[in-house]
């Protein structure tokens, strides 16, 4: 048999579900104190996420997409990026966004039905949340192309889900990244479900990582619940990108521990046993175990930190709750750089109706 091409896709895992190191950490792994700092961010993220769900349940937030279970993946992605890089997230990657400076009140404003949530006060050049699945992947490829054309040493990182990996935009982004050798990293967050559709129904591909082969990209599958594996996988991809070697596709194996959104009821389609089993692979627990083993973490420290998280989150929630609804005429703001006359007329009509003509 003559072989036209052959491929191998590596799987990365260092810290197993029980918090045991199952492989030698690479030399590039961050020192324990940095790992500790990231672990604290994971706890912070989880604290925020739980409060956001609670806000929705009490009618103070619109539909919200929780990130419970995705903490290692999201924090690992965010931690590997530089400020000048650009992130094109889906609607769920708060962890990566927080590390890039997005404020909790902005997340809440967005899901609270206020446009200003997307006007990130930091992370000014990051892409906004993208609701139409995977369209952000092509925007990231476009950003990467801009970086390449302008000779800027920046990388565009984008995330989509296992469902999003079926979307034609994701394929297009992978193809473009390969065709132009772009500084582009496609993160596929495989959390097992796309609302009610399991990963197995999305595609016949054995891995989602191999979708990168379609565009000739570097492909990698990593344990997305293992912060070390996430950091190493991202490091490799970012370095390749910065070195001009082109794009990567990384599949992060994680799990959606929550319903899809607060508008969803996963019990309709998902076995509780599966969720229970998934909890045994929780990214937070295993890292806590490991840090504990290193003498870097214990119950007391956790209690203190969780209290601090609660305090910090509450400040942001209060800021969100204190944010007044905008006057309706803002629906005309930023429609165009210069509003055409007939739009100005409609704006005037709205003001008249509001008794503020």
């Amino acid at each position, binding site marked *: 048999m003559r072989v036209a091409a052959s491929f191998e896709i590596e799987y990365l895992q260092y810290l197993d579900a029980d918090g045991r190191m199952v492989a030698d950490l690479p030399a590039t792994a961050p020192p324990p104190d940095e790992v500790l700092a990231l672990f604290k961010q994971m706890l912070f993220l989880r604290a925020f996420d739980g409060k956001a769900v609670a806000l929705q349940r009490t009618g103070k937030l619109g539909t919200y997409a929780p990130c419970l279970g995705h903490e290692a993946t999201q924090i690992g992605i965010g931690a590997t990026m530089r400020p000048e890089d650009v992130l094109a997230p889906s609607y769920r990657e708060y962890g990566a966004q927080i590390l890039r400076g997005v404020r909790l009140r902005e997340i809440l404003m967005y899901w609270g*039905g206020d446009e200003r949530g997307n006007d990130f006060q930091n992370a000014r050049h990051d892409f906004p*949340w993208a609701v139409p699945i995977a369209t952000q992947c092509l925007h990231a490829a476009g950003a990467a192309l801009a970086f390449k054309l302008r000779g800027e040493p920046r990388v565009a990182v984008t995330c989509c889900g296992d469902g999003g990996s079926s979307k034609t935009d994701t394929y297009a982004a992978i193809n473009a990244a390969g065709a132009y050798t772009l500084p582009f990293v496609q993160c596929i967050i495989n959390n097992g479900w*796309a609302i*009610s559709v399991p990963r197995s129904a999305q595609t016949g591909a054995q891995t989602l990582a191999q979708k990168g082969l379609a565009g000739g990209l570097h492909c990698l599958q990593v344990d997305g619940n293992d912060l070390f594996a996430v950091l190493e996988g991202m490091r490799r991809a970012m370095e390749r990108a910065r070195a001009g070697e082109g794009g990567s596709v990384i599949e992060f194996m994680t799990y959606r521990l929550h319903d899809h959104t607060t508008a969803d009821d996963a019990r309709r389609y998902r076995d509780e046993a599966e969720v229970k089993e998934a909890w045994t692979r929780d990214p937070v627990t295993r890292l806590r175990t490991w840090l504990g083993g290193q003498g870097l973490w214990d119950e007391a420290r956790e209690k203190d930190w969780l209290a601090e998280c609660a305090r910090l989150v509450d400040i942001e929630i209060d800021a969100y709750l204190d944010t007044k609804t905008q006057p*309706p005429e803002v629906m005309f703001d930023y429609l165009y750089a210069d509003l055409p006359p007939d739009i100005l007329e409609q704006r005037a009509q709205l003001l008249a109706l509001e008794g503020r003509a």
Partner: protein
Amino acid sequence: MKTAVDRSKIDPADAPAGKAITLIEAVTQALAWEMRHDDSVVVLGEDVGVNGGVFRATAGLQQQFGPMRVLDTPLDETTIAGLTVGMAAMGMKPVAEAQFDGFIYPMLDHIICHAARFRYRTRGRLTCPMVLRVPWGGGIRAPEHHSEANEAMFTNVPGLRVVLPSSPARAYGLLLAAIREPDPVIYFEPKRIYRQYKELVPDDGEALPLDVCYVLRDGSDVTLVTWGAQVKETLEAAERLAEEGISAEVIDVATLKPLDFATIAESVAKTGRCVIVHEAPRTAGFGAEIAARLAEHSMYDLVAPVERVTGYDTHMPLFRLEMKYMPSVDKVVAAAKRTVANS
């Protein structure tokens, strides 16, 4: 020309056995009826299977008809549209669901270039008997892209039919007709009124014609023309106008393409005034076509300028402000009064 039997006017006493159901239950009922009676009907879309659709329009159908009749698709609208065209060309009758109105754009290529053209292109050799169901419009406090009124873009495309029911009975009868129709039908469902009220909808498999407007209220001073969720506000406006001595006729367009302009023209010939109400942005919304036909055919009947009460020419704002964007009873009443004052 077919004539419209307004099933919402059936006297419950005369009707075959049936039960009072919501608009979305009427959708489910129609799907189930047609699947029972026609093996070639299959339902496909994201989460339509076990989950029964995010709005529950297909609830129970996979359990009833099995996974070979009710198919979850991979998460890609291009895929859904392309598969649907291919299946239809091979003689099936696929009913595809777009999960939300804001996600239909990747479907347009297959709808416009292929679904709308297969019969024409092949001189009748291959056809495309498909339905695309689209939960439509705002007002449910949903996230971005979940509240779009984008029906107008389909109305300039030859070969399509565009339907937008506004009551449980019309939802049932028009969906049956859409599935039985040998050509592609875009079937918008006003999601804001999915569960607004119940009415008796006998599950008798009776379809409604696909090219007939419904006169929901007779009047003599002004014709209010609308469709979809705005039927509610428009009927309320008519009520308010009546209190002020203005008699408003209310027409639910229901089938936008082909348009039953005759019914509208007849009404305007009587009233001399017309207010068109729709949720989509004003400029080049489908209201423009109705106003244009009035300008062509009803010029001598009109005693006052046509008015359009529509969404503004901006994006549907996030949910805090969405109701400020949309036509309201107040806006319709004001416009109708202007037509009376201006004549």
